[in-house]
């Protein structure tokens, strides 16, 4: 069953500095029951606005939203269900736990609102606390707890009514890196237990990939690509998505007689497949960890620089006059200055359009 449906949703804002701006443009999406779906994009791309429209905190300029088969926002028919009647669980970036209530009262709040009887409130709250590893902290106030624990309270509060849909608005960005990683696994565990339908909004690609069944990448109000994490990582639809999903090398390449050469240096071809219809100048995109660095096979060059990191070794090598980053496990040792060969295990072609939209993106961040 389709749990969340957005049809042609558009949101326009009027701002003092930029005039009218389309924060979300003609956004259509269907999310299946039990699916964990991530919205990924740089800040200002419209992902949070979209989520807030699903929650009911923002009006729609156009389009409609359905939750569990029921229309909750339909612009044309003037349907609007307020947030409290949508039956959602939601976790915010800034935790939003109430400092004047202890852990138990925070988590029990959604049940008390429903006027449930005392013993049920107690039972359900205890279950939610247990699932978020908060048992024992019932009477503690949030200000005495760490950021991670506060976010767990928010999580417990969101799941205590066992809602069908859980909305997570960058819930991990205010935590330190170690905690962020472990909370990621906790959310995954919770989803397995409760079988929520989740929308997870984030700007961190590894979070999105670790958690979601499917995800989308947004840029300046538009959906760029909807796919599974694996497909998204391995076959990004354009340069922007490629860059956003992880480290990337883009090699400017000249195609001559069906062979690829680094731009400005025709002495050695790059061993890779070239499409029939390739334009004379293309970008070859390859991730640092998809290059096999070895002694015998592939493009001959030498190590310019080596950085030994905890988990990997980073090599900098030149292809033509372009610097490339290669990342390999520790078992593959080269010294600085040593000759080496590069095999491109997995590479993609993009057209070299040379358009840079970063200035436009930066402007949107300020809003």
């Amino acid at each position, binding site marked *: 069953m389709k749990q969340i449906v957005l049809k042609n949703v558009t949101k326009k804002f009027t701002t003092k500095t930029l005039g009218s701006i389309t924060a979300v443009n003609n956004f259509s999406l269907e999310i299946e029951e039990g699916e964990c779906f991530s919205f990924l994009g740089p800040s200002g791309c419209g992902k949070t606005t979209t989520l807030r429209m699903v929650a009911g905190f923002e009006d729609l300029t156009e389009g409609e939203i359905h939750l569990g088969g029921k229309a909750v926002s339909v612009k044309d028919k003037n349907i609007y269900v307020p947030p409290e009647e949508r039956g959602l669980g939601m976790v915010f970036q800034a935790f939003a736990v109430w400092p004047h209530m202890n852990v138990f009262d925070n988590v029990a709040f959604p049940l008390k609102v429903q006027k449930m009887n005392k013993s049920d409130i107690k039972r359900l709250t205890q279950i939610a606390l247990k699932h978020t590893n908060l048992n024992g902290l019932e009477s503690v106030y949030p200000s005495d707890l760490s950021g991670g624990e506060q976010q767990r309270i928010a999580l417990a509060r969101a799941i205590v009514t066992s809602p069908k849909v859980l909305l997570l608005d960058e819930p991990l960005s205010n935590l330190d890196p170690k905690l962020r990683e472990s909370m990621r696994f906790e959310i995954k565990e919770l989803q397995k237990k409760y079988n929520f339908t989740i929308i997870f909004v984030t700007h961190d*690609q590894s979070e999105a990939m*670790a958690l979601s069944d499917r995800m989308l990448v947004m840029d300046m109000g538009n959906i760029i690509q909807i796919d599974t994490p694996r497909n998204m990582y391995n076959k990004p639809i354009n340069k922007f998505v490629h860059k956003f999903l992880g480290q990337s090398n883009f090699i400017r390449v000249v195609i001559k007689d069906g062979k690829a050469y680094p731009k400005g240096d025709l002495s050695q071809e790059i061993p890779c497949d070239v499409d029939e219809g390739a334009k004379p100048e293309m970008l070859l995109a390859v991730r640092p960890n998809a290059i096999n660095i070895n002694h015998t096979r592939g493009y001959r060059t030498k190590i310019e620089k080596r950085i030994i990191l*905890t988990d990997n070794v980073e090599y900098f090598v030149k292809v033509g006059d372009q610097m490339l980053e290669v990342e390999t496990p520790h078992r593959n040792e080269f010294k600085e200055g040593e000759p080496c060969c590069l095999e491109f295990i997995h590479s993609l072609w993009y057209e070299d359009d040379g358009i840079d939209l970063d200035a436009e993106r930066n402007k949107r961040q300020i809003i």
Partner: protein
Amino acid sequence: MASVKFENITFRYGSNTILKDYSLEIDESQIMGIVGPSGCGKTTLIRCLCGFIKPEKGNIYVGKTCVYSADKRINIAPEKRNIGVVFQDYAVWPHMTVYENIIYPMKKRKVPKQEITKRADYALSQVRMTEYKKHLPSQLSGGQQQRVAIARALVSSDQLIVLDEPITNLDLKLREEMLEEIRSIQRNTGTTFIYITHDQEAALKLCDKIAIMDVHGYICQTGTDEEIIYKPSNRFVFSFMGVSNFIPLLKKQDGLYIDVGEHMKVNHEVPAEIKDNVNYVMGIRPMDILFSENSAVKGIIKSATFLGSQYNYFIQLGNREIRVQRNTLDTLQSREYMEGEAVGLDFARVFYYEEPLEEVES
């Protein structure tokens, strides 16, 4: 360009000893990283070096000059030590333009006018901020303010620049860029840099040499990236540098076993360093655990997560849960492993640590 020498520095705050007999030598024209968890005393050390606070004991030399000596009652004022400092919160003066910020140190040091303009322009071009000369700091982003702070430090001293967690407040992409820039600026100017951070990854990427401090203010190891990653001097250094698993070991007649509730024989030889009658743990990084069909060490994959550049696995190994990471390249070349699957494990690059008597959490 100057070397720096700390000799037996002791610093106490109330009854709390932050540094005790701390000695460190820093070669000239290098980037020296001083790395440690927060609260280890690295910022205290730097504030002693700059003269903002005074150690109780010890001597500090910058080049051949003694800037502080408790015995000889030498304490050169901060303004006369000739050290450029880049602070964590940038400390760019908000009431001065970028240009005014940068010429301030030269004005105070009475540099001739023409020279000031020349050096300021050079410093601005070094940090790629020439076009922002007339801006006020409030009109700049965090990264740009940090660049101004670096330029100001550059003109302030050509012998020694200290950077105190300069990129912590920036976002990930910008951090990478700034590291590159700091690196190339140092290569261009040849000035000695001291880089203070709690981020071991940044230090590895940037520094020629790294000194690792523990929470008690002791230096555990000083060395290059290679020495620190391949020959960590103790268990603290090993675990501070990244995610690690510690698995208890058991030496038997016929070889080495891991002790995880049940005993499983490890595929490699018993190393010579293992003594009898001592308990050992094996320290191993998630990336160095390999899947292998013919290993006697068997575990079950509890969770497998695709993270883009790598896969992350939690593996139930006897009564322990260990973490394994696998490069996506390896996966592309072999196959994916699924949750619930039983796998054999090989351990590459193992470090052996004597186990203290009490149980230590992994």
